[in-house]
């Protein structure tokens, strides 16, 4: 068990050791300079204590000394900077093979969704020995995903996905804190991170009652919301074909290219006209207020799960100019009608 007064939180991720080493290095530097300075003050205070007949000796300064005590701290701090930046860089880049989990924060709870569709509230189960990437979004204010045992922390924003990743090393139960002040029950927005061996984790996954994997729920939504009416593989599709989209760079009408990451897909659904794919018309209606963050997560998981069909040329998933401008209004009318029907049949999520 833990000692009575630990100085370090549990080291339960691959990065924890690195962070602690840097911390110890800094503690040593701090101890060195603090003791040095404390000792000098004491020493000078005692040695040069005011005595009758021994006036102070006037010294004006020394450029050499100034250079020394400018450059030594400068050198030390550059070492710290580079070391810390390297760790940070590592923290910011999830490995490509990382397992993905989605986390949604809201006042004042955490929801997590696993790829298999398992959902949990205020707890997060992860296996050891596998990098886990957590994609985070908030439904209201800014929260912060903080697991001290992993030494990871990431603000959870209401308008775009942020990421963090870790590879757990030690089975056990650890704290999950919300560490960005978020209102009344900020201090109650806590949970447990349960780290399990891969076998236990598999068993846990199997026991969880999932209504189907994230991607398959996403596929259902994709049909329900009518995305499939436009995003199809055939040549008559009005929207770009989505398989293979994730991770590719997309050329836009204004000739910029952007990488299709989670945020891009999210924006494409909520603000479809912010970035128009080259060769297409901005006819896609917004789904803001129609799909909730949880749904978005599923849709994105679905789109990500679509394998690239063939290695076609960049962005040419369907040939451009499929729709003549004159058709646009008709399509839109039709779309609006369909949407209204859908809205009437199914009460949608609350408007924000």
């Amino acid at each position, binding site marked *: 068990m833990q000692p009575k007064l630990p100085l370090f939180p549990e080291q339960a991720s691959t990065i924890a050791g690195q962070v602690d080493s840097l911390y110890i290095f800094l503690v040593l530097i701090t101890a060195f300079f603090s003791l040095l300075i404390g000792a000098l003050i004491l020493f000078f205070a005692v040695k040069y204590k005011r005595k009758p007949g021994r006036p102070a000796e006037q010294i004006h300064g020394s450029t050499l000394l100034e250079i020394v005590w400018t450059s030594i701290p400068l050198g030390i701090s550059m070492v710290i900077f580079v070391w810390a930046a390297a760790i940070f860089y590592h923290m910011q880049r999830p490995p490509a093979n990382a397992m993905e989990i989605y986390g949604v924060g809201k006042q004042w709870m955490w929801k997590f969704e696993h790829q298999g569709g398992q959902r949990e509230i205020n707890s997060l189960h992860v296996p050891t020995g596998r990098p886990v990437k957590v994609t985070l979004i908030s439904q209201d204010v800014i929260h912060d995903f903080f697991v001290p045992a992993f030494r990871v922390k990431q603000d959870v924003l209401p308008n775009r996905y942020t990421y963090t990743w870790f590879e757990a090393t030690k089975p056990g139960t650890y704290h999950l804190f919300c560490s960005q002040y978020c209102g009344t029950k900020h201090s109650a927005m806590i949970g447990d991170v349960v780290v399990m061996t891969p076998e236990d984790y598999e068993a846990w996954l199997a026991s969880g009652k999932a209504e189907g994997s994230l991607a398959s729920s996403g596929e259902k939504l994709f049909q329900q919301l009518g995305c499939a009416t436009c995003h199809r593989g055939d040549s008559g599709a009005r929207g770009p074909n989505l398989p293979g989209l994730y991770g590719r760079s997309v050329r836009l009408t204004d000739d910029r290219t952007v990488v299709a990451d989670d945020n891009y897909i999210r924006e494409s659904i909520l*603000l*479809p*006209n*912010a970035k*128009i794919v080259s060769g297409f*018309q*901005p*006819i*896609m*209606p*917004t789904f803001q207020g129609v799909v909730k963050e949880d749904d978005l997560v599923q849709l994105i998981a679905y789109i990500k799960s679509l394998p690239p069909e063939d290695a076609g040329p960049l962005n040419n998933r369907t040939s451009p100019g499929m729709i003549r*401008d004159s058709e*646009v*209004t008709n399509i*839109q009318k039709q*779309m*609006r009608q369909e949407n209204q029907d859908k809205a009437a049949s199914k009460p949608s999520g609350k408007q924000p």
Partner: protein
Amino acid sequence: MSTNQTTAPATGHHPAWAHQFENMQQQKEASSFGMWVFLLTEIMMFGGLFTAYMIYRIKFYDAFVAGSSSINVQWGFGNTLVLIGSSFTMAMAVWAAHKGKRMQQVVYLVLTMVLGTAFLGVKAVEYKAKYDECHIPGQVIGKGFNATGGPGCSGEGANIAEELEHPKTLAGKEVAGKPRAAAEQIARQSELFFVFYFAMTGLHATHMIIGLGVLAWILRRAWKSEFGPAYYTPVENFGLYWHFVDIVWIYLFPLLYLINRIPHH
């Protein structure tokens, strides 16, 4: 610290001379430098707004263009000339004070005041138009923001969405109108443009109003012949303020009215 002592060399006793200064020269330099430091704070205050404007303009370029195109550029253009003119008359007022020409000084100050008031008048007309068009951000003032054709929102550019839907010729090229969905989205986002339009012109107008108040006081003092070649610091400092407000507008005009005015039909 050994200190020699000198007697304060007060050069003449001007009524405006304040006790903490050694002489009028020092007083003048201190006041003018003080004014400049004050303008420094003003730069930073407007600077915060400009920064936020810049970031959102990059992010929502289409919406900013749409919003900007919906405001009447003639009024803005005319107002720019008015304000530049008032800057000129203000500079002349300072010159007249410096040369000790009382009557000219009064005339130029009055002209400055007239032009400044005219500017605010035009601004009021513009705000009124925005009010009628339901382009005031938020849902608190008037009928609330609505750029997609709300009931009772009148005015030429009120329905920004509709405007965007029209096909147009841009520099000779046929460009299709935006589909409804896109047009509506952009129109809604243009609210952010209007936030900055009102915040920036509003802060600017507040400065103008304060300026006119101070100007009235300066005018009174000029009328009473309080300024002359020996002492006209208040006129000069007020001039600095007034020119600064002019400079802000010099930037606001292109940034708010002229984001993209490429003609189309």
